[in-house]
């Protein structure tokens, strides 16, 4: 085993140790295991939010898209800022309602708002479906790091399996407390590593960031803007919208709101978190710096660009540190996603059908489900052949289907019924699943649309979702007679 791999595995061991320590001496009930109590202060909330937002997707995926796609990668910088703008009003409303009604999960929220256990089950299953590709992002990222840091001695498939085992073990030994501590280390290490790489590489190899962009532009004219077809302007607008609307629809981002101490903290986050997005610039710089240095990575291989240029430029010690940062950037959100998926299936799906089971049984089932969900993520990662960004976009196309039902539920007089909400969500999910499975491009089906045919399928599905939601809600309004009598 080489120095780089030793460093990476040392950080893995440290994370697991911290996870065990965080839990020792504590008899954890389900609320502690999943929400971590309601006592986290500003810094922890910030780290938790940041830890969930900055994943291997940013580290390897954003640099990979800068390398392989150029201008379209800039969508990654755009959607967070808009999501935070919406969060200013959306999240305090969710937080207040959740606190008043003692809710623990996203599913509880929908169950309570729409007075329907069945809708809670539908929402839960959709979020788990969306989290499988998101988990696959983390596993694939870990696979890339381990395989590249081994200088090719570990195959990428074996490396993905190692990653899956690492995340699963980590989740089993720790709960949210473990990941809160590890995410502190992760945030510092990832930030130091990515800022260093993003500045060092352009300056050392090109003489500056401006010079680097000039050379890339000279080599590949137009690469640094959006193309006329494919990842075009309509694709960009619809994708930023999709990902901004879906940003807080994940059970873990939605759930992170519940552990906030006050609505004011949530609103304050909305003012400074947009700036934090600029960290992604450094990932872009690494990707662009790699274009002329490690050319020839095609398709999903573009995700290797950050590690390939690191291998070319630095010795094994530095590669080990870079790999350790990447490991943590995958481990922290990966463990969170895995834990949340298993909890959602156990508590919000299984317990919905069997309300008489004890809390211990629900916790035990969640722990049994952890390796099974991990397996699903692994199979998805190995089978899909998608790059990291496309995997996450697929997850977003599913999860954003919850947005209309959530938004309507916050209205003072919500006319949307549980049937409308459920039918809308399922319509949206079905359309995404169909178009993505058969790789159907709207532009190919309707050439007359021109560039509008590049609109993200998730947004197209959401429009259908809204129409179905409205129509079914009008058809199933329970109180029509009562209202007529009142009038």
């Amino acid at each position, binding site marked *: 085993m080489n120095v780089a791999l030793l460093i990476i595995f040392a950080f893995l061991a440290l994370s697991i140790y911290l996870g065990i320590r965080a839990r020792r001496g504590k008899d954890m009930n389900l609320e502690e295991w999943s929400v971590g109590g309601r006592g986290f202060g500003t810094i922890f909330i910030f780290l938790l939010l940041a830890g969930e937002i900055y994943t291997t997707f940013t580290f390897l995926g954003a640099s990979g898209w800068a390398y392989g796609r150029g201008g379209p990668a800039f969508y990654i*910088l755009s959607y967070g800022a808009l999501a935070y703008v919406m969060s*200013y009003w959306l999240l305090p409303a969710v937080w207040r309602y959740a606190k008043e009604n003692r809710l623990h999960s996203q599913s509880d929220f929908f169950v309570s708002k729409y007075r329907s256990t069945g809708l809670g089950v539908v929402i839960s299953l959709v979020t788990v479906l969306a989290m499988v590709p998101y988990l696959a992002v983390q596993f694939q990222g870990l696979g890339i790091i381990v395989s590249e840091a081994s200088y090719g001695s570990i195959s990428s498939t074996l490396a993905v399996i190692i990653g899956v085992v690492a995340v699963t073990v980590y989740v089993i030994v720790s709960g949210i407390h473990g990941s809160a501590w590890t995410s502190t280390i992760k945030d510092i290490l990832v930030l130091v590593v990515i800022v260093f790489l993003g500045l060092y590489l352009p300056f050392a190899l090109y003489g500056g960031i401006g010079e680097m962009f000039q050379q890339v532009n000279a080599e590949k004219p137009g690469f640094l803007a959006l193309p006329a077809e494919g990842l075009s302007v309509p694709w960009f607008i619809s994708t930023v919208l999709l990902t901004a609307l879906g940003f807080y629809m994940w059970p873990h981002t939605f759930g992170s709101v519940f552990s906030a101490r006050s609505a004011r903290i949530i609103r304050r986050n909305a003012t400074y978190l947009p700036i934090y997005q*600029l960290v992604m610039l450094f990932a872009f710089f690494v990707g662009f710096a790699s274009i002329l240095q490690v050319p020839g990575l095609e398709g999903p291989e573009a995700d290797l660009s950050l590690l390939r240029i690191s291998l070319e430029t630095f010795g094994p010690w530095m590669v080990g540190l870079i790999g350790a940062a990447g490991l943590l950037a995958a481990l922290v959100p990966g463990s969170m996603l895995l834990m949340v998926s298993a909890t959602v299936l156990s508590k919000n799906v299984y317990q919905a059908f069997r309300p008489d089971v004890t809390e211990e049984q629900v916790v035990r089932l969640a722990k049994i489900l952890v390796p099974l969900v991990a397996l699903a993520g692994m199979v998805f990662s190995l089978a899909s052949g998608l790059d990291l960004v496309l995997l996450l976009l697929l997850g977003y196309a599913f999860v954003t289907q919850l947005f209309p039902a959530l938004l309507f539920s916050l209205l003072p007089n919500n006319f949307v019924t549980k049937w409308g909400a459920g039918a809308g969500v399922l319509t949206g999910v079905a359309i995404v699943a169909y178009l993505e499975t058969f790789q159907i491009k709207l532009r190919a089906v309707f050439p007359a649309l021109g560039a509008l045919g590049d609109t993200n399928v998730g947004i197209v599905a959401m429009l259908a979702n809204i129409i179905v939601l409205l129509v079914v809600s009008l058809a199933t309004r329970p109180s029509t007679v009562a209202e007529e009598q009142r009038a």
Partner: protein
Amino acid sequence: MRLSYLLAAVPFLGILGGVIFANRVEPFVLGMPFLLFWIVLWVVLTSVIMAIVYQLDPANKEDEAE
């Protein structure tokens, strides 16, 4: 409150609407291709705008005691 909503709409116009006009490589600004510069500018402006919204919002003074 109304002013806050108007302010909040500005980043959406700047990023989602602006990209139609800003989708170009040149001129390079601060070393960055124009599209990237445009987005960076709006990310920074979003924070500024939300800081103003925060200051204008009476709810943030009410909650102070929490």
